[in-house]
């Protein structure tokens, strides 16, 4: 808003289209997506990643893209958990951001699965392989299985939640195309009575069913997510190995879910010109509580994890941690993970003056997101760098340009899908609120 007014003042004579900034935003996103696509194509057409032309003979098998994938699926689980706190578990104050959270969860799981699908060396083989010959003992298989299932459930859940409003949209839409499409998405023709008022009983049932589905979805999300934790936890690498890994993943999911929801809801409200006050402000304060609490618990998790591995310095576990404490990842760990990612946000959220200010909340959520991303990166790379029992020891790894390009592209893709979703779906406020047609 401010920016647009500023522009108007500056270049007063040229009349800008009303949503000029919106088009710039779309344009930037599309350019970035193209950059990412270029990176991905390069990764797959050049000889294999871990060696040429990426010069790092260290050959860390799981790299930046895997870290990004973990980040995305952690976020989707967290978003799903946080929004179902509002939808299913009765945290009513979260209501205004629930739909946004669900949309974001859907976007992140879509992009997340896309990342892992493009990260593996044989992207075209994987779908057929997963249809034809799977290994039920493999945790990775169950992880992908449950994430796919989760995505399906999430879509169904969202459909049930949004259906009523989409039907309203299809009735009110000015263009015939819009009417047709919304009618198609909401399967309006299945309705016995065509009209704006549907039987209360049906709407009620759909609503309840959406809640049940929400419960199932969260459940599947947590299964899938702890499976991801176990994918790391079962390996022999000392930094990863351990039964607490899945639990830790669930916890950190809540952190990144709350942080991302906070960040994107504030940004979205600003961009749509919604004043953050009243119920909306309350919901962000609720997110602040969730985020702050999860961050504090996480701090203890990190602390005890390190202490328990360092207490009796077995050479293996000690070496795994030295990478973080004073090894190649020390800046990532001390500055990004601990400082920017955990301590400063806790402070910001805990101190009343800053915690109650939306701008500070935004800052805290951005910091947490950065911290979580670095934490994912460190988790994946740091675990592998400690692997020393081989002829293929991994020494150091720094992301290649193409990988970074791909990651940027994936983030831009998330932004684009989210923007489109916000534009076409009834996410911001229900129809009932807008039309004043209450129960």
């Amino acid at each position, binding site marked *: 808003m401010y920016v647009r007014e500023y522009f108007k003042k500056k270049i007063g004579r040229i009349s800008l289209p009303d949503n000029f900034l919106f088009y710039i935003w779309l344009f930037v996103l599309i350019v970035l997506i193209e950059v990412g696509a270029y990176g991905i194509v390069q990764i797959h057409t050049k000889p294999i990643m871990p060696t040429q032309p990426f010069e790092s003979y260290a050959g860390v098998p799981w790299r930046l893209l895997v870290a990004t994938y973990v980040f995305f699926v952690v976020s989707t689980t967290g978003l799903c958990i946080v929004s179902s706190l509002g939808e299913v578990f009765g945290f009513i104050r979260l209501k205004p951001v629930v739909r946004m959270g669900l949309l974001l969860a859907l976007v992140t799981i879509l992009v997340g699965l896309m990342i892992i699908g493009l990260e593996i060396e044989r992207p075209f083989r994987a779908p057929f392989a997963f249809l034809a*010959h*799977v290994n039920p003992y493999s945790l990775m298989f169950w992880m992908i299985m449950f994430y796919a299932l989760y995505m399906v459930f999430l879509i169904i859940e969202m459909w049930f939640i949004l259906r009523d409003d989409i039907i309203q949209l299809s009735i009110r839409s000015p263009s015939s195309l819009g009417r047709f499409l919304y009618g198609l998405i909401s399967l309006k023709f299945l309705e016995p009575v065509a009209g704006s008022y549907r039987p209360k009983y049906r709407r009620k049932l759909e609503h309840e069913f959406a809640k049940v589905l929400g419960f199932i979805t969260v459940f599947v999300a947590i299964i899938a997510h702890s499976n991801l934790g176990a994918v790391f936890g079962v390996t022999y690498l000392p930094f990863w190995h351990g039964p607490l890994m899945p639990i830790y993943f669930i916890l950190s999911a809540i952190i990144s879910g709350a942080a991302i929801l906070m960040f994107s809801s504030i940004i979205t409200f600003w961009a749509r010109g919604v004043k953050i006050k009243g119920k909306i402000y309350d919901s962000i304060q609720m997110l602040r509580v969730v985020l702050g609490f999860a961050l504090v618990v996480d701090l203890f998790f990190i602390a005890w994890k390190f202490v328990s591995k360092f207490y009796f310095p077995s050479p293996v576990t000690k070496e795994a941690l030295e990478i973080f404490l004073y090894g190649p990842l020390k800046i990532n760990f001390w500055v990004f993970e601990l400082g920017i990612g955990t301590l400063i946000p806790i402070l910001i959220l805990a101190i009343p003056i800053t915690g109650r200010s939306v701008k500070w909340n935004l800052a805290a959520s951005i910091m947490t997101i950065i911290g979580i991303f670095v934490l994912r990166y460190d988790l994946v790379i740091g675990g592998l760098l400690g692997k020393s029992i081989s002829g293929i020891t991994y020494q150091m790894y720094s992301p290649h340009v193409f990988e970074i390009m791909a990651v940027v592209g994936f983030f831009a893709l998330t932004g684009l899908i989210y923007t489109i979703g916000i534009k076409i779906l009834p996410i911001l406020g229900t129809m009932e609120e807008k039309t004043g047609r209450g129960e």
Partner: protein
Amino acid sequence: MNDEGDIKKKAIFFGFVLVVFVAAGIIFYVFYLSPPIEKTYVQKWMEIEASRLPQYGSPELCSKCHFEQYSLWIESEHHSSIQCENCHGIGMKHIENPYDGNYMPRIDTSREFCGICHESIPPRDESSAIKTVNLSTHNPEYSCILCHLPHRT
């Protein structure tokens, strides 16, 4: 109120049915559908793997054409324990096309070549399985094969 409870029950029932169906589908797919197909994959791959041609021959194969060297080598005191192809490079292709210059075995007469095995480095001490010499002091000017015929030692 009664109506409300009814709706809730109905919704939960639907959800339950959905979960049961999905779970049954997964179990059926994972444990009944996929393994049988997998067996044929395994069989096929084992055939492919077994059908790869060896590159590394054996002295007996060389003996067919290089009987002179072979008979020297087989009676030699020491090098009879090492393969022709250790010194001459991998030679199955050469056996198939003996006159093809591309696949001609290499003959390396440099001192460094013998040093790969005979250079004295600390891990190869007295107890090791090989006799070592210090390349820089053991008759430095000459090629090794001048005094030690490789096929005969």
